[in-house]
């Protein structure tokens, strides 16, 4: 009898832990109905090394091309008030003003007086009907991430592609708009 009870208790506990793991794997949802762009910065990088075949920039750039990197700070708003925190968006544009990449922020690292780094990933998706969410299916099958790095001591900027290819900024191209209030509606007229 005791053995049966012990077996039952452990089976129950095991099932519960499995239930918790499944809950963690669900997509994370953040509701909002509009987005406010509150600040942005940009800088240019020159392609001096061709990206490898696994790079997201492969076949999209040539040696000597100049890409413009835009990073915008976003606030997700619902009914006029911030609803689910903030985020950042990365836009990489070529000289023909064609966006090669648009990713939302996945991670942020700040070392005071040393560096700031943003990771922008393909598995952070945006669906106005539900919000910004992490697609765990993409994450598990191989997410791609681009990185923007700011060296605070040298005041320099770098873009890293998903393979780690380093693209330093072109001196004199950095610009920022620290006080924006641009509202983008998540809904459009039919």
């Amino acid at each position, binding site marked *: 009898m005791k053995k049966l009870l012990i077996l039952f*208790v452990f089976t*129950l506990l095991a099932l519960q832990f499995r239930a918790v793991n499944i809950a963690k794997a669900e997509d994370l949802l953040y509701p909002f109905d509009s987005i406010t762009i509150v600040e942005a910065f940009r800088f240019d990088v020159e392609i001096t090394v061709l990206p490898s075949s696994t790079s997201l920039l492969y076949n999209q750039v040539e040696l000597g091309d100049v890409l413009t990197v*835009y990073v915008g700070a976003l606030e997700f708003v*619902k009914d006029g008030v911030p609803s689910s925190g903030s985020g950042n*968006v990365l836009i990489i544009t070529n000289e023909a003003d064609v966006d090669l990449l*648009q990713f939302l922020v996945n991670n942020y690292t700040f070392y005071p007086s040393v560096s700031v780094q943003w990771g922008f990933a393909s598995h952070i998706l945006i669906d106005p009907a539900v919000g910004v969410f992490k697609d765990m299916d993409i994450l598990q099958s191989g997410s791609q991430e681009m990185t923007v790095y700011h060296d605070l001591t040298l005041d320099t900027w770098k873009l890293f592609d998903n393979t780690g290819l380093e693209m330093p900024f072109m001196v004199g191209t950095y610009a920022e708009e620290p006080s924006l209030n641009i509202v983008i509606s998540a809904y459009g007229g039919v």
Partner: protein
Amino acid sequence: MKKVLLILLAFGILLGAFACSKDTTTTPDVTTTGEQEPLDQDSLLDSISNAIKAAFD
């Protein structure tokens, strides 16, 4: 020994009930009306991209 097992069992059931009732997601109130529909991801990101670029013009 039986009491200990019964207490463990009760604790397990309570823990299970808590884990099952905890909802890790939020269900948004969609504000779409009959005259509006949500933009898809690409359209929304394009709007953000255009707005940021325009801010630097």
